């Protein structure tokens, strides 16, 4: 008998009011614990109704939800089941050796539902840093999302800490290509590349580069295709089924994701036929504070108030002559602002690397 049948007493007619008035079976605190994964058991055992009658009668003390016949199961068991089943995802013909190897490698280190957790990515880094910056978000099959609160502030000095999870993610999956969405992710891409170089050496892409490309709905489909054509040609020439990581600084609509996926896949098929499969991953900053704008209101108190979102003078590249221009090809903006920003950013990354290396040495000495 299914749970719903159970809930509604087999084939008995349903009485909505009866359903609503059913005795509460779970307290708010328990629900919170379940959802936070704090409870020892993932789902608590059924409650003793007689004890609930003695509980405080204030309605706000109760949370009633669909009466549950949930099985008693530990988090470890649940995650184990999910992992065991997920392994089959990578055993299809489309996901042969390379992907399976990568994922399997990652699975060994993970300890959450996800392929890898941000925490596991960053476990080796014990340097003194705000967890607020580096451990929010998640890693999943489609890539890595970093999520920030409204009061999160990113500037040239601390951007290294923000991109550290992305750097470690790249180190873990070793994509064949990394493309940063221009302009928004220009500085993000530069920071990722520099921090990777300092921590791990050569960038792991097939040609050791990180590419910048513009994905914008303000450009026509043909413009975007022409813009990406030579890059995709290179991709499929080197790899039959390349893994491509697209970095973006701010996802609000998913438009960049769809545009990048559709255009690159279409071009790849043009060059290599229908069998080619591009494995896309996305590395994005998201959430209310995911906008790493550096606007004054968000950056007060930081060493250098910056604003590099949509400011070509800081980002160092522009598309068209006007603000918000829609040309597909960028041109460099060699302004004092962009130079200063880069200097501060690289200085911050050097400091971060030094801090990490010192912590590593201390750990080794201990």
């Amino acid at each position, binding site marked *: 008998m299914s749970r719903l049948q159970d809930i509604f007493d087999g084939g008995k007619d349903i009485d909505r009011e009866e359903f609503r008035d059913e005795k509460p079976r779970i307290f708010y605190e328990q629900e919170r614990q379940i959802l936070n*994964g704090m409870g020892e058991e*993932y789902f608590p055992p059924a409650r003793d109704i007689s004890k609930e009658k003695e509980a405080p009668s204030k309605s706000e003390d109760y949370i009633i939800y*669909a009466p549950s016949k949930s099985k008693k199961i530990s988090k470890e068991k649940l995650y*184990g089941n999910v992992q065991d*089943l997920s392994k089959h*995802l990578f055993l299809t013909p489309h996901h042969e050796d390379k992907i399976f190897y990568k994922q399997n490698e990652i699975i060994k280190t993970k300890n959450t*539902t996800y392929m890898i957790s941000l925490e596991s990515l960053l476990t080796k880094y014990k340097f003194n840093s705000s967890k607020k910056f580096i451990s929010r978000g998640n890693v*999943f099959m489609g890539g890595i999302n970093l999520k920030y609160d409204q009061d999160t502030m990113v500037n040239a000095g601390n951007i290294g800490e923000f991109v550290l999870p992305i750097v470690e993610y790249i180190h873990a999956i070793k994509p064949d290509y990394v493309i940063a969405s221009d302009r928004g992710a220009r500085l993000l891409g530069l920071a990722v590349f520099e921090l990777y170089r300092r921590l791990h050496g050569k960038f792991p892409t097939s040609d050791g580069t990180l590419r910048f490309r513009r994905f914008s709905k303000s450009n026509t489909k043909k413009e975007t295709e022409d813009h990406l054509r030579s890059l995709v040609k290179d991709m499929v020439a080197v790899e039959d089924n390349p893994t491509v990581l697209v970095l973006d600084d701010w996802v609000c609509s998913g438009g960049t994701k769809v545009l990048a996926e559709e255009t690159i896949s279409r071009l790849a098929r043009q060059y290599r036929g229908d069998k080619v499969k591009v494995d*896309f991953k996305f590395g994005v900053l998201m*959430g209310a504070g995911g906008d790493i704008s550096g606007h004054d209101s968000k950056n007060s108190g930081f060493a250098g108030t910056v604003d590099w979102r949509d400011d070509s003078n800081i980002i160092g590249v522009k598309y068209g002559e006007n603000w918000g221009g829609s040309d597909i090809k960028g041109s460099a903006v060699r302004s004092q602002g962009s130079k200063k920003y880069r200097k501060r950013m690289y200085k911050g990354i050097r400091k971060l690397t030094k801090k990490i290396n010192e912590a590593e040495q201390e750990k080794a000495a201990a």
Partner: protein
Amino acid sequence: MSLKEIIEKYPHPIIGVIGASTPLPGYNPREAKDLGYKLRDFVEKGGSLFTGGVPGVGLDVYEGIVGYCEERGVEDKFFVMLPTDISPPQEYFDLASRTKNGKLIVESAGKDMEERRDYVAEVADSLVVINGGMGTIDEAVKGLYSGKEVLCLSNSGGAAEILSKLRLGEIPKLSDMDVDMDLIKTCNSPDEIIGYLINNKLYKQLRGE
């Protein structure tokens, strides 16, 4: 919003459609849209639909739902569940504007995507799986442990295919997976899913038929 509030807010059966935001091979968006259309037709007599509010499968299904609503001039009977502070893609809002209700209903469910998956498993009376990755498997397994029926579009690849194979014994049952395998329903087409829902006594009861 609490589980209780969400569960009580919407007419039952509440059917959740789960799948990948970046679908794996085997996925056919047209089939997802077709299923969305037909599910919306199914809940016309009673019930609600939801997705996880991310791109990919969920968006395609909603497009099908909106297609139905546009044809009939009706409301979508639909909501998305996302963690607090995360918004669905703009495409959802654009699609919702084409329905009679005109607005997308977004239920705040949990503080992160993992917590949201707990909500998905608990809120749904049954889950429909199309394609899907590891997150989808997680939602489906949680649903199974909660005693929810999981209807898989078997030929859509990814998680749906794996769960179907598990049900059919093509993948060995996990020794420590203590769930009722009969809760997994393997369906080869959207029509088969709808057929199951229409003819099942349980859903008839939930809709007061």
